[in-house]
């Protein structure tokens, strides 16, 4: 029996038998992307008690972000997304260390080995492949989420399993440099803004962080070992088996 500890913010979390809250407090997570998924993910990580969170993004807050980004306010327009997200998370959990890195992930020097898990909250395939390759090389677990309107997907990349690139084909490489961002501006590969809303984002970010909690609690065997697709309209959650692609350069 676990006795109530009223002074412990994570008292209720400690009542979940497989969750290692002490490990979460020690853990270091890198969140790549501070858009819609990134906002939800950082909130979930912070409230779960992750002790050290770094969030990296290159963008600034825009009005069109505000239908789905918890930490953004109208007064934040023009500010770096990472600063706003980090500040919001610090207010939620002042005991944790939340760092903001404002920059392009491909152009930023990152000590990948200093992180226990990396979370992909990205809006383009090029950056996904970059992060995926570094995580594979440094053997850091990578949990990647993506959305498109009411659809979303989630993939957990562990040392012995397939990676993001193993699931890709020519259709991905054709649009590799396109940003599937809801804002769409200030980028050389401009595409019309895509549909995006909070409920699908919230579902996939919750699943993403839950997989991270399993990894950090030593329950990797309970993680999704394939790729999961979510249809928010029908509420179908489909897990598809993926094999390591023998031609994938990351294996």
């Amino acid at each position: 029996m676990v006795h109530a500890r009223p002074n412990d913010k994570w008292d209720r979390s400690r009542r979940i038998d497989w969750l290692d809250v002490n490990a979460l407090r020690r853990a270091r997570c890198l969140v790549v992307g501070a858009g819609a998924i990134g906002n939800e993910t950082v909130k979930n990580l912070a409230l779960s008690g992750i002790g050290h969170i770094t969030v990296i993004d290159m963008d600034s807050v825009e009005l069109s972000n505000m239908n789905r980004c918890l930490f953004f306010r109208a007064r934040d327009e023009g500010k770096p997304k990472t600063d706003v997200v980090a500040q919001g998370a610090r207010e939620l959990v002042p005991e944790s260390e939340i760092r903001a890195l404002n920059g392009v992930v491909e152009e930023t020097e990152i000590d990948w080995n200093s992180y226990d898990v990396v979370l992909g909250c990205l809006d383009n395939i090029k950056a996904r492949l970059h992060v995926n390759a570094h995580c594979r090389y440094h053997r850091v677990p990578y949990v990647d989420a993506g959305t498109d309107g009411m659809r979303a997907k989630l993939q957990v990349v562990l040392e012995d399993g397939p990676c993001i690139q193993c699931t890709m084909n020519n259709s991905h490489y054709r649009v590799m440099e396109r940003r599937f961002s809801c804002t769409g501006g200030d980028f050389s590969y401009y595409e019309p803004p895509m549909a995006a809303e909070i409920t699908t984002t919230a579902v996939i970010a919750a699943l993403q962080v839950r997989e991270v909690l399993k990894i950090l609690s030593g329950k990797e065997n309970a993680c999704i070992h394939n790729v999961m697709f979510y249809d928010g309209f029908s509420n179908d959650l489909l897990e598809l088996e993926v094999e390591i692609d023998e031609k994938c350069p990351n294996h």
Partner: protein
Amino acid sequence: MVIEITVRNAENGSTLNMEVEPHTTIEDIIEGAAEFWQKEAGAYVLRRGKRLLKGQSTVQDAELKNKDVLELIPDPEGG
């Protein structure tokens, strides 16, 4: 030997019958189906049952059979 497969569009449930050869790749099928449905340029994957099919594998590699039903799924890449 040419076989006939059905590709289902996960976005609207419509179907397309295609004749494919053993050397036809999964990428060819994705491209053909996306073109038929005039889909916008984007990332797509193809599944058979619970298995996601590798893009570069052929009909023969993937052990597709006559009358198999595949599903074309958009691969969400937004954040």
